[in-house]
């Protein structure tokens, strides 16, 4: 049963992966040329079919086991001796493959030595009787299962290596070791991302765990009930739909109510006529406990302030509808594997009202980034063009000055710039964050000038004969020639503006003008005790940049090699 469940989950993940690849292939096909294009379209279709198949499988495989099992997160806990034995076995394997496929002479001897060392350590490990644990916090794998998994991994790696036609480089073993190392590296680099996503989807109670990180989030199972105490009512407040609880009723058939959701105005109390209140069902948490000597399952009817909970029984049938009260340590909350997506909506709801669920931040940030990109590209290219193609007195001196400003750390001009913007009355406005972009940055001018210099002069001359002035030939002839460089500069500027933190920190004071990065920092401080919300907010603030990365990865990589640094 557990196996079925795991297989089912695995299938749906594989399905998602296939569908994603399919979408990616479609996009790639759009940009590709003819022979490659058909190829990509074909593989898109193929991936789509395979993905669908996986989904079907996931649906077919019965997954009745709804709790108690977690995905097999492979995290072996072994004592030192076991690790040593494992390492020596791997070494022996490497030597053996080298011998088998490359005909190396001495290696069998080494393999035997490694194997002997391995068995020695294995004996030590056995003798010590230390526990061997796989996948902490998740299922304890049996030794057979672990061996099977290892065999599977090795087979997969061999298959990958087998398809490689670069065998001459050093045999399967080398390829295998390379892949293994790279895969471990990928896990290390990807783990924080994974943890971010998992944490952003966890319930609060899963955040802290004495038995290591909880990798498989669970959510509370709920029962939709109308009879819980307090009752929850739907009504509207200042035009907003809200859910409230009644604090007390007044004699004049009105009531003082207390907002329960949305989270942003939780705790707000107001008076409203009873006629405007409509009772709604509450998702009451389900718990299991003991009642009349039987194991029962029910939902929480009313929590008391001293911690006890009143529970209404749902199963078994015989006791259905009966009510009992118990202390929390006797009531086990019923939870199922699942993701708490509410963290994302809550994170947005908890923002100040001016933020309009975070849209204001997004709008401000986009405004700054877009204007910065436009400003930088226009001004830098104009200046670079003038420096590369037009002769005027003092050009070289001015260019020398421009180059020397690249050395100047921004710290030097930080304070006087503040005074300049203050005199302009620009404090607490967005201007200081984008206006300077329209005045050309030294580094971009320098970079673009190199590109302009490489364009043959004849192109421009031809345009001049056609009666173009400098502006025309800049725009019509030169700019199209340096598109890749402009894209790279655009991306760097985008990243720089999006990441800018010190600017908003100094210049922005009100929530309606805040940018995402500054808001994220404030949010992290404000909500220091709720990592789920913080991680959800952090994840959301990463998304636009990651999207840009996936669609323009080529330019990112070009940009690194072009400029010599990673834009950080």
């Amino acid at each position, binding site marked *: 049963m557990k196996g079925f469940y795991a297989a089912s989950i695995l299938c749906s993940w594989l399905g998602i992966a296939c569908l994603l690849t399919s979408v990616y292939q479609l996009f790639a096909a759009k940009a590709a040329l003819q022979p490659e294009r058909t190829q990509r379209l074909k593989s898109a279709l193929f991936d789509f079919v395979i993905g669908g198949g996986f989904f079907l499988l996931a649906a077919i495989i019965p997954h009745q086991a709804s709790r108690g099992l977690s995905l097999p997160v492979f995290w072996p*806990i072994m004592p*030192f001796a076991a690790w040593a034995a494992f390492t020596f076995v791997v070494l022996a394997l490497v030597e053996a493959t080298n011998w088998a496929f490359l005909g190396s002479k001495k290696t069998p001897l080494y393999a035997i030595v490694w194997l002997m060392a391995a068995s020695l350590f294995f004996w030590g490990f056995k003798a010590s009787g230390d526990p061997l644990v796989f996948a902490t916090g998740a299922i304890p794998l049996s030794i057979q299962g672990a061996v099977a998994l290892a065999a599977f991994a090795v087979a997969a790696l061999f298959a*990958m290596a087998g*398809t490689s036609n670069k065998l001459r*480089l050093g045999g399967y073993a080398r390829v295998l070791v*390379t892949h293994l*190392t790279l895969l471990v*590296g990928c896990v290390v*680099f990807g783990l*924080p*991302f994974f*943890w971010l996503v998992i944490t952003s989807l966890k319930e609060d109670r899963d955040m*802290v*765990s004495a038995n290591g990180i909880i990798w498989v989030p669970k959510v509370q199972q709920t029962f939709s009930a109308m009879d819980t105490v307090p009752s929850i009512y739907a009504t509207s407040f200042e035009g907003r739909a809200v859910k409230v609880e009644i604090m007390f009723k007044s004699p004049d058939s009105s009531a003082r109510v207390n907002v329960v959701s949305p989270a942003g105005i939780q*705790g707000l*109390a107001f008076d409203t006529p009873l006629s405007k209140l409509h009772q709604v069902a509450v998702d009451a948490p389900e718990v299991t406990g003991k009642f009349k000597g039987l194991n029962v399952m029910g939902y929480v009817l009313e929590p*008391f*302030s001293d*911690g006890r909970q009143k529970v209404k029984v749902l199963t078994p049938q015989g006791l259905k509808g009966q009510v009992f009260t118990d202390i929390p340590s006797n009531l086990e909350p019923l939870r199922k594997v699942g993701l708490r997506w509410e963290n994302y909506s809550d994170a947005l709801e908890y923002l100040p009202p001016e933020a309009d669920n975070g849209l204001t931040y997004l709008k401000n940030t986009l405004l700054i980034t877009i204007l910065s990109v436009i400003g930088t590209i226009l001004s830098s290219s104009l*200046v670079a*063009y*003038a420096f590369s193609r*037009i*002769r*005027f007195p*003092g050009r070289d001196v001015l260019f020398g000055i421009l180059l020397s*400003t690249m*050395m*100047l*750390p*921004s*710290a030097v*001009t*930080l304070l*006087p710039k503040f005074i300049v913007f*203050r005199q302009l009355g620009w*404090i607490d406005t967005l201007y200081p964050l984008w206006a300077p972009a329209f005045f*050309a940055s030294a580094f971009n*001018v320098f970079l673009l000038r190199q590109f302009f210099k490489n364009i043959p002069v004849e192109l421009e001359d031809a345009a001049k004969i056609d009666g173009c002035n*400098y502006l025309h030939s800049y725009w019509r002839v030169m700019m199209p020639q340096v598109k890749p460089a402009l894209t790279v500069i655009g991306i760097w500027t985008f*990243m720089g503006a999006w990441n800018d*933190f010190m600017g908003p920190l*100094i210049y922005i004071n*009100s929530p309606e003008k805040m940018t995402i*990065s500054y808001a994220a920092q*404030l949010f992290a*401080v*404000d909500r220091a*005790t709720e990592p789920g919300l*913080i991680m959800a907010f952090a*994840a959301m*603030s*990463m998304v636009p940049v*990651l999207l840009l*990365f996936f669609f323009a990865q080529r330019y*990112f*990589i070009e940009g*690194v090699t072009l400029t*010599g*640094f990673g834009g950080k």
Partner: protein
Amino acid sequence: MKRAHLFGLLCFLTCLCSAQPKEDVIIWGTALNENSQGQQAVLREFQKRHPEYNLRAISMGAGGTDPQKLMTAVVGNVAPDVIIQDRFTISDWASRGAFESLNNLIARDIADPEDPLPKDYYPSTWQEVTYDGQVYGIPAEADNRALYWNRALFRQHAAELEKAGLDPNRPPRTWTELLAYSKTLTEFSPDGTLKIAGFIPNYGNSWLYMYAFQNDAKFISADGRTCTADSKESEEALQFIVDGYQVIGGYDKARNFESGFLSDENDPFILGKVAMKIDGNWRLNSISQYAPTLDYAVDPAPVPDARFKHLGRFAKDKDTFITWTGGFSYAIPKGAKNTAGGWAFIKFATSVEGRLIDSAGQAAWDRYKGRTYIFVTQSNKDANAELYRIYKPADPKLAAALKTHIDLMSHARVRPVTFVGQVMWDELQRALENACQKSLTPHQALLRAQHTVQHELDAYYDHTKHPELNLQVVFWSFVAAGVLALLVLVLLYKRMKLGKLHRHDAKWGYLLISPWIVGFVVFTLGPMIASLFLSFTEYNDLTDARWVGMANYAATVTSDKMNVWKAFSNAFYLAGVGVPLGIFTGLAIAMLLNTRVRGLRWYRTIFYMPAIVPTIPSAILWTWVLSADPSRGLVNSIWAETIQKWISLPAPGWLQSEAWAKPALIVMGLWGAGSGMILWLAGLKGVPRSLYEAAEIDGAGPRKQFLSITVPQLSPIIFFNAVIGIIGALQEFDRVYVMKPSSETAGPGDSLLVPVFYLFRNGFGYFKMGYASALAWLIFLIILILTAIQFKLAPSWVNYEADG
């Protein structure tokens, strides 16, 4: 710049505002979280009663606003109307002229029942908001400290306590008793580490101040001009702390013990690992939430024996027990646009009624969440009485504890009211550390602190000796010089012998580069000159500038030597360890990927992705990934499961520990090694294969090939990376700002203090524009020197042949 100017602007803006039907009242310092429900209730009630105002409460970070934020707002003429601020900092702000005096407003509204008057408040709280005879804030919440003792532990050790002649049914009342109880209750594990600590002097919330106040130490003279940190009284207090650590096995042992402490339900006091501690009333909340059944009691903290018996200098002192109070207050910043609205709100919020509404709001919320409501003690005497009447907890333990705290309010002392409060705090902290580690005697440690603080005081009171400057004149003379220079250039151009076509070209050239010229003058050259000029002045933007000559630069190597040295050494640590490690990681991945491995693009994407994650979210992510608590942090939980189990090496404290904070930043930096990897990959592709083939024929092994082909071929990129990396490390700011664990300090023991952060703090936190400018030039100078050295050394190892 000038006050008159500011005032004119103020009037103008006030006029503008009054034209509109609703005036905004902007309030800073309110939090937007679970514990601010009371504050929200007060805001809503005020809004209801005063429809003429439009209240806008803004959270600028929990628990008070970042000082830098408020200062930039005041200087930038966008100050809020009300700021809720830690009371302790009021005098500091007032001394810099950043707050409005409230004396006139209080006097004006004397007839108003809501008008806050000193007689309604505990003297110490009112004293803390008064600076130079002027009131700058109205106190609201007030906390204080008392002795929390675990009755159950006392009972368990009853026999031993009685043997030592101590009563197990009551808490210690004098310092001597306290140490005796601590000695009896302390238990050690077989390996010599602490198992149960009787009393850790500086655990909880006591610091040196608590003991010094009990011993009547004064830290500053009555006129505020002389620091008296080193007195017989304070030395005795510090000696008591040192003795207290001696009783439980020494300072280091106690610190090791403390490093394993967790919060909330794993609070060591709750778990019975600490028998007694001095802590504030806020602690009652977590005890009632996580350990409602804990058998504990709260009593006044033990005092010096002489005080308890009213002997010697305490003979005439009425107070037997002494506590130390802190808390929040409401103030109006300079330049507030709606003083009337702000004052109306302050009066309402700090009145007894306002305090009751606050409590009612929070109480309703806590009840809704199923928690016991424990009210926050106030600075207003009547408010406390009322609150105790209405919200007295049903649990007699809790009620008694609250009563103790309220009764102590009348015997409270506050930290010295001086603008050097923060420096004093930092210095006393350092003194405590030095004395407990026995590197200095209490006398030496306190004397050193006194010197540093006195230096700050002298600098302030002596600053009038420097000549005043009129910045307007300076500015316009610079502008005039600029115009003159431009005229000369134009004249030169006119006199040049150029052809017509050439002149036409030149016109276009100047036109097209004009964006850069303007930008250069306004955003680079102008600020550079200004920065250089300011570095010779003392200027805070609110008062007049003074010419101090080289004093700012001198300060970086004399009075402020410690901080500056710390900042730069931290940066060198980050660069010296971080840059080579980053290069190594990136190069290693690139070399693995360069073996014509299949799936290169996938691997490359995965390794590169972390490098493009925006800085702030990734810093936030890593603060949690590197959380010291193994039940929360990703790294430490894995560490606890593996390394700790295999070789019993405890997990590092990362950002919470002085030694590991910088490695934490470096580890996070390695995560972004992907951008370097791309560069290395491109470099490796450029290395001619023929070189390797030739080497293979010569019989060179892989290591030899790496050292004599790969490294020399890549040396230009290695060099470039090293230069950029070191410059980057010297300009580190964002990550430190986000990842420092508390807003007051730059990491534990200033271990994350980096140059730009220090500059930012001086510049925008204290608006020491002159000193910050000097720091900026110091950073520039050091970058220049480092780069020059690197270029000087480069020819000996960098191989440019490949480029040619």
